[in-house]
């Protein structure tokens, strides 16, 4: 039987080490290599910036979805792997959630939202985990283990389907090329093209692909965002062109 899991890590890095997104990417590659599970794209979730939160530089967590026949082995592998992969001085946390097994899905969603708005504690994270023993596996991997808060929150935000942005960016094959939304989606890395108000572009829209485009994560889709041009075509937006509210 196939299971779907969310895997999220936080606080795995230091100022000079590979970032948490790269760490998760390597972990997913190892899971695939071991034949344990197949990872999906990675999303980045911005959490609250606050003096009482001991983040490294930006307080974001990274999450992916993994399909597997053996959830217990995936969790065990991730835990062991992270023990050897995190940077000295970091405070790593890992969270593995099986959404189908959640008793109170709304509680996890609320935890994710709360981590963007107020300071949460490790005890908050453990309390939720204790009430969801069948669905949530949380673990600390060194330092203060503070990363469990962001890891659990990241799973909640990924589960919401409506937060953050996708790791990586789409590159034009030729700068200035013109594509329809379907042609862009067929290249992979993006599932839909919307305007900045969240409305899907019509099938016949002409997208001008000039600069690398940053997909955001909305309605469980990787969404490229475009804005209208004076000539009736649409410009695909790069990260610096995206409205601030769509980036966080």
């Amino acid at each position, binding site marked *: 039987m196939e299971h779907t899991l969310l895997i999220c890590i936080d606080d795995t890095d230091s*100022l*000079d080490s*590979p*970032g948490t*997104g*790269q760490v998760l990417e390597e972990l997913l590659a190892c899971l695939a290599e071991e034949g344990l599970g197949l990872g999906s794209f990675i999303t*980045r979730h911005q959490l609250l*910036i*606050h*003096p009482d939160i001991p*983040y*490294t*530089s*930006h*307080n*974001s967590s*990274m999450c992916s979805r993994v399909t597997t026949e053996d959830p217990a082995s995936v969790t065990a592998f991730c835990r062991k792997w992270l023990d050897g992969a995190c940077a000295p001085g970091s405070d790593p946390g890992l969270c593995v959630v099986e959404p189908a097994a959640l008793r109170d899905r709304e509680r996890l969603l609320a935890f994710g939202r709360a981590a963007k708005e107020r300071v949460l504690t490790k005890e908050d994270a453990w309390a939720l985990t204790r009430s969801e023993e069948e669905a949530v596996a949380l673990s600390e991997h060194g330092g203060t283990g503070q990363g469990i808060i962001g890891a659990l929150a990241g799973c909640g935000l990924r589960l919401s389907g409506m937060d953050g*942005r996708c*790791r*990586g*960016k789409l590159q034009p094959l030729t700068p200035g090329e013109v594509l329809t939304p379907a042609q862009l989606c067929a290249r992979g890395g993006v599932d839909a093209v919307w305007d900045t108000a969240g409305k899907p572009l019509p099938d016949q829209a002409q997208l001008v692909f000039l600069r690398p485009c940053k997909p955001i994560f909305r309605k469980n889709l990787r969404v490229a965002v475009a804005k209208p041009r004076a000539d009736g075509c649409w410009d695909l937006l*790069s*990260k*610096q062109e995206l409205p601030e509210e769509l980036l966080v």
Partner: protein
Amino acid sequence: MSKWFEQTAEGKLFRFGRQAKEAARAAVCDGYGRDDEDETVDDTVSCYNCRYRRWTARSFTCMRPGRNET
């Protein structure tokens, strides 16, 4: 402390906040190290994109030891 930074309880705080892209480009020092693409704000060489900056609610602090304070 310098044209770009002031010493605060949080550390070496960039004086110009989170939206001063020109100042953040001008303030780059010889210890600049680009952060992961996921964490940068654009494609420029800027303190905003440096792995040694630590965002705060209003600005960022420079965490690079021995930063050139010009």
